[in-house]
C-alpha cells in the first residue's frame, strides 16, 4: 500500500494548494500595477487604479452615460490612471459600503448620504477631508450656496453632492380634467380633490410605501406646514420640543385624513419605489408626491405625452406654513477614503469629475436638481415645460427641512419609518403615534 499512501499525500497537497489559491484571490483589486517605472531615460509614471463606487447602474438614466463620458475623457488625459467603476443600485451600495467600512476597506471614491446618515462614517474617520481640494480650479464656487454645509462636520468638508432636490407634487392634467378638479391650494382642498377623483373612478395618488421612506417624506412635508416652518426635528434634538408637541399630532391627524380619504392605491405597503412610481408614469394615478429627482423619468414616461404632467407646490395645512418652504433633499455625495493608496490622484480625479459634471449633465438633459450652478439656456436646449416649471420652483425656495433619516440617528429613523408605514394599514390614535416616536427617540439617544 506504499504507493497509494504517497498518492494520497500528493492529492492532499494539491487540495491544500487549491485552497490557498482560492483564499488569496481577493484584496489585490485596488493596486493595479504595483511595479514602478522600469529604468530608462524618461521615468514612466506609476500606473494607478482608482476604484469608483457609484449608484448609476441604470443604462437608461442620463447619469450612466454622463459618468462614463467624464471617466473616458479623464483616462485619455491621464494614460497612467485607470478608473475602475463599481456600479450598484442604491440599497446594495449602502449595504456594501457598511460591510466595507466594518473591515476598513472603503473604496477610493464612494457614495454617502448627507448629514445624520454620513455621521457614523465621519466619526469613524473613514473619509478624507476635501477642504483643500474643493478650492482648486474654483470648484467650490460652482456649488450652490449653503449646500456643502450638509456634508461638513467640525469645519471639514467630507463629500461633494451630485444633486440638490426639493419635494413637489406631480399631477396628470388629463385625469384632473376628467374628474373636473383644479390644482388644490390647501391641504383641505387636496382631500376634496382626492374624494372627487375617487368618485370618478380614478386612483388619486400613487406611492411606493414598501420602501418606507416615501410615506415619511410626505408626512414630513405635512409636519413642515403644521409646525409653521422648518426645524421641528432640530428642536427635538435640542431638547426644546418633544414628539408629543401639538404640531406633530396635528400632522399625524392630517396625514391620516389623507389616507382615510382613500388617496393611496390598495396594498400600497407592498409596492416598492419603482412600482409605485410606475403607477403614475403609466397614467394610472392622478397625483404623485416625490422629490424633483423623479422629473427626468416622468418627463419621458407615457403619462407625459403632449406635456400632460404638471407640478404644484405642496399646499398649506390648516392654513399653516408657507408653500415656498420645501422638503429639501441634498443629494447623495462622493466621498474619498481616508486610507486611499492614491489620495492625491483620487482627489485630482474627483475635482475634474465634479467640474465637468454640470456641463455633461446639461447636455444629456439631466441637469434639473443639480447641486451645482448650471450655465446654459434650458429652454433653448429643449427641456420640457414641466422641467422648466420645476426649475422655476427652485427659484422660490425659502428654506425647509431635511428628510427624517437625514436628521435623526438610524435607530430612531427606523422606528419612525415603520410607525408611519403602520398608518397606511390601520388607523391609529395620533397621540399613540407621538408616544411611540418619543420612546424610540429616547431609547436611541
Amino acid at each position, binding site marked *: *500500500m506504499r504507493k*497509494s*499512501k504517497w498518492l*494520497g*499525500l500528493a492529492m*492532499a497537497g494539491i*487540495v*491544500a494548494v487549491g*485552497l490557498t489559491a482560492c483564499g488569496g484571490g481577493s484584496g489585490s483589486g485596488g493596486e493595479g500595477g504595483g511595479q514602478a517605472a522600469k529604468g530608462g531615460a524618461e521615468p514612466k509614471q506609476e500606473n494607478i487604479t482608482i476604484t469608483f463606487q457609484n449608484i448609476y447602474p441604470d443604462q437608461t438614466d442620463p447619469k450612466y452615460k454622463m459618468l462614463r463620458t467624464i471617466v473616458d475623457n479623464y483616462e485619455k488625459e491621464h494614460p497612467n490612471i485607470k478608473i475602475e467603476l463599481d456600479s450598484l443600485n442604491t440599497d446594495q451600495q449602502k*449595504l456594501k459600503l*457598511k460591510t466595507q*467600512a*466594518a473591515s476598513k476597506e472603503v473604496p477610493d471614491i464612494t457614495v454617502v448620504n448627507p448629514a445624520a446618515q454620513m455621521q*457614523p*462614517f465621519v*466619526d*469613524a474617520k*473613514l473619509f478624507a477631508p476635501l477642504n483643500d481640494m474643493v478650492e482648486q480650479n474654483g470648484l467650490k464656487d460652482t456649488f450652490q450656496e449653503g449646500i456643502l454645509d450638509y456634508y461638513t462636520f467640525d469645519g471639514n468638508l467630507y463629500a461633494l453632492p451630485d444633486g440638490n432636490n426639493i419635494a413637489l407634487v406631480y399631477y396628470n392634467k388629463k385625469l384632473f380634467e376628467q374628474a373636473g378638479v383644479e390644482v388644490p391650494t390647501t391641504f383641505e382642498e387636496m382631500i376634496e380633490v382626492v374624494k372627487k377623483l375617487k368618485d370618478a373612478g380614478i*386612483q388619486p395618488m400613487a406611492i411606493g410605501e*414598501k420602501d*418606507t421612506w416615501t410615506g415619511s417624506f410626505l408626512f414630513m412635508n405635512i409636519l413642515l406646514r403644521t409646525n409653521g416652518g422648518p426645524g421641528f426635528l432640530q428642536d427635538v434634538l435640542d431638547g426644546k420640543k418633544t414628539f408629543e408637541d401639538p404640531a406633530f399630532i396635528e400632522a399625524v391627524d392630517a396625514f391620516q385624513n389623507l389616507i382615510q380619504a382613500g388617496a393611496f*392605491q*390598495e*396594498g*400600497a*405597503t*407592498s409596492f416598492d419605489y419603482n412600482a409605485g412610481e410606475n403607477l403614475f408614469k403609466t397614467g394610472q394615478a392622478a397625483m404623485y408626491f416625490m422629490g424633483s429627482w423623479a422629473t427626468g423619468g416622468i418627463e419621458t414616461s407615457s403619462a407625459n405625452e403632449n406635456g400632460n404632467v404638471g407640478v404644484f407646490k405642496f399646499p398649506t395645512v390648516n392654513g399653516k406654513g408657507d408653500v415656498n418652504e420645501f422638503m429639501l433633499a441634498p443629494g447623495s455625495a462622493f466621498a474619498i477614503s481616508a486610507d486611499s493608496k492614491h489620495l492625491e490622484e483620487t482627489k485630482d480625479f474627483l475635482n475634474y469629475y465634479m467640474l465637468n459634471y454640470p456641463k455633461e449633465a446639461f447636455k444629456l438633459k439631466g441637469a434639473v436638481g443639480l447641486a451645482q450652478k448650471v450655465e446654459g439656456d434650458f429652454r433653448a436646449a429643449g427641456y420640457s415645460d414641466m422641467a422648466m416649471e420645476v426649475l422655476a420652483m427652485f427659484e422660490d425656495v425659502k428654506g425647509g427641512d431635511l428628510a427624517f433619516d437625514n436628521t435623526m*440617528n*438610524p*435607530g430612531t*429613523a*427606523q422606528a419612525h419609518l*415603520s*410607525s408611519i*408605514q*403602520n398608518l*397606511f*394599514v*390601520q388607523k391609529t390614535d395620533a397621540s399613540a403615534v407621538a408616544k411611540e416616536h418619543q420612546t424610540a427617540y429616547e*431609547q*436611541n439617544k
Partner: protein
Amino acid sequence: MNVLKVSRWTIAAFVLPCLIFYAGLVFVPVLVSVYSSLLDWNGIGESRFVGIDNYIRLFTADPVFWPSVRRTLVLAVLSMGLQLPFALFVAILLNRFIRRPNFLVSSYFLPVILSVVIIGQLWKTIYNPTSLGGMLNQLLTAIGAGDLTRAWLTDPDVAIYAIYFVALWQYIGYHVLIQFTGIRNIPADIYEAARIDGAEGLKADRYITLPLIVPIFKISMVLAFIGSLQSFDLIMVMTGGGPAHATDVISTHMYNMSFLSMKYGYGSAIAVFLVGLCLVATLAINFLFGKLDKRYS
C-alpha cells in the same frame, strides 16, 4: 478505524482542510457574534463594551422581538404539524397507488429548485388586491365568496398567514421526496411477511411503514424546524417584514437591527439567540425521537 488500512496521519491530512474550513466558517463567526453581542456598536466606528445590556433590552424592552419569535415558532409548528404529516401521507399514497411515481415526485419537487425571489414575486402577484387583478381575489369573487377578498399581504391580520402558506407550499415537495425515498428503502420482504400475517394495504402502512420511517421522519423534522427558524428570503421579497413589523420574524428583525438601524451589537444578540434556539431545538427533537426509536425497536 483501521479497516481502511491507512495511517492516522493520512486520515488527518484529508480531514484537516475540511475541518479548518468548517471551523473557520461556522465556529469562528459564531464566537465573533457572541463577542459583538456584548458591544454597543454601529458596525463601523468605535465600540463600547456593555456586557449583557443588549440581551436585557432584547428580552424586556423590545416590542418587536417576542412577536417575531412567536411568528417564527408558529411557522415551525405548522411546518412540523401540518406540512410533514401531509408530505408523509402523499408519500405513502404515491408508494401504494402510483405505478410510476417519479414524474409526480419531480413535479412536487419543482418549487424547491425555483429561486425564492421568483416564488415570492409569483405569489405577490397572486395575492395582489382586486384593483390590481390579484388572482386569488378574482377566484374568490368568481366562486361567490367576494366577502373574503382582501389585500392579503398588506392587511396586518392576515399577511403573515399568507406568507406561511407559501413557505409551506414551497417545501412540501422536498419532504415528500425525502420520505418517499425512505419508504422505498423499507425492504419488500417485510411487507410480504406481513401479508401472510394478514396485514395488507393501509394496515401494513400503519404497522410497518410508520415505525420504520421514524428515522427518516426525524431528519425531515430537524430540517423543517431549522428551515423555519431561518426563514428570511421569502419574507424579505414579499413584505420586507411590513406592514409595520406585522410579518417580521427573528431573522428579518436581526437584519433590520444590524443593517438598517445600524445597531450591530444588538443585531448580534438576536443572532446568538437564534443560534441558541436552533441548538436547543435540535437537541430536543433528537431526544424525543431517541425515545420513540427505543419504543419501536
